[in-house]
């Protein structure tokens, strides 16, 4: 895999509402934003950046359904077919009695499956080295990164747009990215 050295412009903001309105201003100015990094979730930021809604809830639902089916199949097969035991002359497949375990396994698989999906799609794993444009983005600053190679505007033009949108600093950073 080849590596390119891309130059990024890094706009630093210090207020959540400013960065939220800045995203729209910068995008309207014709700049393509690489990503925005914030110390906490800002509601509506994904919308102004034009991100689609996450499909993780759907993944959770599918995992949950899998859990429900597996749990029911397991119990019905074990007590109903594989080794039926007479317990007080009751039915072998006692559906109401199977509900608690079915519920627990539904929740377990939905939760674990969704979290695993989240970690995989977000590429988060123990020991990963994050690409931080500015290490203050986990403290108190809101960082907007713009990839110069993917924008037709010049560095000065983009800097001016970032400044007028409310950035308190505009820095540059060279980042190695996969070609």
């Amino acid at each position, binding site marked *: 895999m080849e590596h390119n050295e891309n130059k990024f412009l890094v706009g630093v903001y210090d207020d959540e509402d400013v960065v939220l309105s800045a995203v729209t201003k910068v995008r309207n100015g014709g700049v393509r934003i690489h990503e925005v990094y914030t110390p906490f979730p800002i509601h509506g930021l994904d919308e102004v950046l034009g991100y689609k809604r996450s499909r993780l809830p759907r993944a959770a639902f599918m995992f949950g359904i899998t859990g429900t089916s597996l749990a029911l199949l397991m119990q019905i097969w074990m*007590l109903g077919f594989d080794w039926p035991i007479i317990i007080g002359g009751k039915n072998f497949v006692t559906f109401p009695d199977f509900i608690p375990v079915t519920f627990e396994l539904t929740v377990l698989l939905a939760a674990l499956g969704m979290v695993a999906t989240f970690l995989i799609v977000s590429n988060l794993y*123990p020991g990963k080295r994050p690409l931080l444009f500015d290490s203050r983005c986990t403290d108190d600053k809101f960082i907007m990164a713009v990839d110069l190679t993917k924008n037709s505007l010049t560095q000065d033009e983009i800097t001016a747009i970032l400044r007028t949108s409310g950035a308190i600093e505009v820095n540059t950073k060279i980042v190695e990215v996969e070609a």
Partner: protein
Amino acid sequence: MSHVVSPVREPLVLGGKTYADVTEDICRQVEGKPTKLWGIAFLCSLVLLGIGLYGAYRTFWYGIGEWGLNKTVGWAWDITNFVWWVGIGHAGTLISAILLLFRQKWRTSINRAAEAMTIFAVLCAGTFILLHMGRTWVGYWALPLPNTYGPLWVNFNSPLVWDVFAISTYLTVSLVFWYIGLIPDLGTIRDRARSKVSRVAYGILSFGWDGSAKTWQRYEAVSLILAGLSTPLVLSVHTIVSFDFATSVIPGWHTTIFPPYFVAGAIFSGFAMVLTLMLVTREVFDLKEYITIQHIELMNKIIILTGSIVGVAYITEFFIAWYSGVQYEGYAFLNRMAGPYWWAYWSMMTCNVISPQLLWIKKIRTSVVATFILSIVVNIGMWFERFVIIVTSLHRDYLPSSWVMFSPTIIDVTDYLLTFGIFFTLFFLFAKFLPVINMAEVKAVLKGSSQKVAEQKRTSASQPAEYQTRPAFNKDVE
């Protein structure tokens, strides 16, 4: 975007904090050297753990004959302690899941520690499950595993098997929920770390968190779904614990009221334990501006509510014991109140039903000292509740010739101390090495709910338009 908050709302974070202040205040005790006070407290919990491990050794080596159990009372302190700890382990998920669904923002500064406490309490409960099996090394027989006898599977009609699934699912999901919430804060600590050891350690633990908008969007989706899953889960766990009793035919246990009654009791005792720990934590780590009197008051209100539900449940049980006309049931309840264990029953009544009613008085529920004392009283009361339910229902069998009393042995006591040792050792480790308050979540509510903003809004309350355009926050606005 932070929501517009009415100026009449009390601020959640006091003292005009900025985002950087939040990071600084919470990271301080993670980054600093352990204090002497912490060292002493940690040492004490290790001593408890040591004493407890001796008890556990005796229990494993000689069997549960080391306990005060007898032919009639086959369950006593083991299950009392198990239910007590599981109950305590309900508050964390309630705070982090149910209060999240209800958009209760005040939960942000207490959810991290409460969830940690939940996990540790459930571990303690699990310890008693393993201990009371007697032959713990074959504890895996409780799982539906293929075996050489047939395969003969576990009995899925048994509430004890449901319990295995409920408790282990609850522990796993709570742990995952807690850890996902920790990742952004671990990233914050990683980026501030000065020593190489902590940079590497928190670097590994933080999973390469970078706080990008896309990840936050997914993170929020995950949090919401986990909250949605945990809410019925937390209600199911104590429901299933109560089934252990309710599906039996022992007078005093065989009642349909048990599930809601146990869940209310669990929240009641869990909140009490959260208060006990948080009042100490806010004092020792100087977090009074984050865990405010308002937090204490709100939690006390939940304690009044759940305590009153528990009280109504006690009275309903009595009424039904008489109204059902079942002699055995009626006797079991009369025996509880006026029999040889009357002192346990009345301790329970005093601690759980009568004393929490003091919290109706505003002066008491906003007092740190009174709340601290009452929270311990509630936990004592809830221990007695489980003792009363378990031992008084068992000790007078159907045959008067097998009527006995139960008295605990020293090993019963040390096994109980073992769980305190586990609980406090883990809690002190957590309090030292992990952020006790969820920094990211507190920062997210800061702009809408800090004292600084509230004051600015009050001064500009005559101009309604000002509600919409809030002042720039990180700059010093005079």
